[in-house]
């Protein structure tokens, strides 16, 4: 349960940005109230400035520790959100997937994120019933299994290419069975030829289709998904390469794309189905949720997975705050030790008549300043960490991740500041409890 839930519900009539700003202020409120009470009636800042300068290198080290701890914590949490958005964005073109009954997650990974699996095929009759169903505007077979230099080769239709990339950045749509349109990240040029390998990964058979060559004729726009590293070819070619019928009767053997002849349709692992209206997609899902077919929305499967990640996010947030508080506690313990170096000067202040509360406010303000500067610097480190981790994740997964800090991370930092400035009262109390006479003689 989100502890901020009741607060959000109380202010849900406000615009979203205003709600977040109010929550930020509420989280900072303990720090502001404690600060106001501690320094009320005094001006400790010139002394604090002098203390910061006197031990500037030690202070920089403390600030650096807090900044790195805060920055990495919020950077990682922002990454989780970026990954969620990136995976959903990658699945955006895939309205409805129809496949043989099995695991939705396995098929999601195979059809959307191009992690091929050995799955049963849908027959020509099944494809025909999907393609001719009411309200279907696109029914594109997705036939995977071959590759070239680790780029997956996917057989589909010109309509599918247009669905993924409404315009090509260079070249043209495939017109012949041996033409190929490549993703934006494929290291091939227009006009290049290549021989497909059978399979994907370490166990590919390079010579299995040695007699066949594809020619690159076009390049798709970037999609921010693993499809940027894919090679899309006519599904007819995929079937022909494997010695199967090509989806059309012999007298129409040169045809590309639908309609396919069910009698000459060798089968496809999945079909991307799209309808113009949302209700129609749901109606189609209900229609093809049968004993012979499985229909699912990639977005719905992702939402379920994100639901699980939501719990992980909460645990991550708790662990991040615990880590940050532990680091800050370490820094405060360091400050207590540092106070021993200041002890004689603070005792002198008190011997000259400075009120105990003034000395208390000096020590607390000094610690709070270190925490505040460290936390603010941590936000900067967080932006940097999020950007670096995003690049690494994008390179590793081919899913474009654009993580950046947002209100939830700022709330986390605000909560951290409030919690730790309360902890900063401890070294202030300890400094105050030291014996003046002993410190003056030390």
């Amino acid at each position, binding site marked *: 349960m989100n502890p901020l839930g*009741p607060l959000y519900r109380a202010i849900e009539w406000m615009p979203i940005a205003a709600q977040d700003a109010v929550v930020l202020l509420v989280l900072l409120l303990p720090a502001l109230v404690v600060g106001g009470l501690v320094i009320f009636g005094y001006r400790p800042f010139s002394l604090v400035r002098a203390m910061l300068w006197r031990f500037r290198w030690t202070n920089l080290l403390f600030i650096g520790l807090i900044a790195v701890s805060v920055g990495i914590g919020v950077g990682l949490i922002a990454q989780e959100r970026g990954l969620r958005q990136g995976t959903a964005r990658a699945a955006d073109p895939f309205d409805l997937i129809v496949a043989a009954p099995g695991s939705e997650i396995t098929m999601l990974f195979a059809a959307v994120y191009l992690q091929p699996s050995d799955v049963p095929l849908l027959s020509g009759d099944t494809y025909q019933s999907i393609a001719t169903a009411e309200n279907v505007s696109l029914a594109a077979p997705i036939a995977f299994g071959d590759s070239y230099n680790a780029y997956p080769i996917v057989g589909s239709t010109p309509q599918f290419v247009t669905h993924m990339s409404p315009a090509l950045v260079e070249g043209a749509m495939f017109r012949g069975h041996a033409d190929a349109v490549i993703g934006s990240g494929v290291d091939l040029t227009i006009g290049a030829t290549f021989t497909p390998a059978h399979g994907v990964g370490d166990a590919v058979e390079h010579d299995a289709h040695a007699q066949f060559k594809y020619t690159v004729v076009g390049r798709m726009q970037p999609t921010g998904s693993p499809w940027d590293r894919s090679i899309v070819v006519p599904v007819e070619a995929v079937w022909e390469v494997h010695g199967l019928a090509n989806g059309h009767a012999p007298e129409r053997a040169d045809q590309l794309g639908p309609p396919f002849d069910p009698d000459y349709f060798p089968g496809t692992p999945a079909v991307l189905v799209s309808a113009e209206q949302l209700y129609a997609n*749901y109606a189609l899902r209900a229609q093809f949720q049968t004993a012979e077919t499985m229909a699912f929305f990639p977005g*719905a499967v992702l*939402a379920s997975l994100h639901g699980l990640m939501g719990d992980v996010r909460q645990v991550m947030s708790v662990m991040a705050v615990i880590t940050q508080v532990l680091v800050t506690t370490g820094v405060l313990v360091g400050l207590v030790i540092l106070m021993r170096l200041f002890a004689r000067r603070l005792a002198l202040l008190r011997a000259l008549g400075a009120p105990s509360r003034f000395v208390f406010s000096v020590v607390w303000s000094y610690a709070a300043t270190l925490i505040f500067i460290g936390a603010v610097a941590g936000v900067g480190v967080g932006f940097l960490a999020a950007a670096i981790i995003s690049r690494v994740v994008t390179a590793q997964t081919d899913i474009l991740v654009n993580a950046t800090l947002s209100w939830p991370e700022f709330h986390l930092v605000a909560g951290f500041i409030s919690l730790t400035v309360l902890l900063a009262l401890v070294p202030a109390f300890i400094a105050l409890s030291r014996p003046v006479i002993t410190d003056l003689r030390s």
Partner: protein
Amino acid sequence: MIRACLIVLALLATTIMAQGTYAHGEAHQDHDDHVVEADGVRATHAWANATTGSTALVYVELENISESAVTLTGAETELAASAQLVGLENTGGELVYTVIPQMPIAAGSKMVLSPNGLAIRLEGLTAPLVHGEHFHIEIALGDVHLDTAVEIESATATQHSHAGHQH
């Protein structure tokens, strides 16, 4: 420290699960009206998650056992200012619920409203939805109106606690 935290988390989880199981056991002794049927349309296992917020999603299994298509057009309940049919949609990487004005249900077919799919969204709730209690909702399918009880499951439930039972 981490071990101590994990132990505390495990204890908390056990306590929460134990509370959930207890409340769950109590709730369904009181009423057993999980199925309503009128004019060849059947509504089964209507449920919603417990919440103290102002919006909630209601899920239900609808079955058209008649010989003609019916259209789900909306719902009404005294507990909320409005009730609309919505469907989860992926729009540019944002998974959002979009209003669906009407949803046809073909003759002899079933339409399941479930989490991360179709749902009836209640807005402007006038009272919190308390786990173990229930409220009534009137589902409009053209001229057919089904008045069914909505079980309030736990805030984290993902299905009706009688899901899978035949009624």
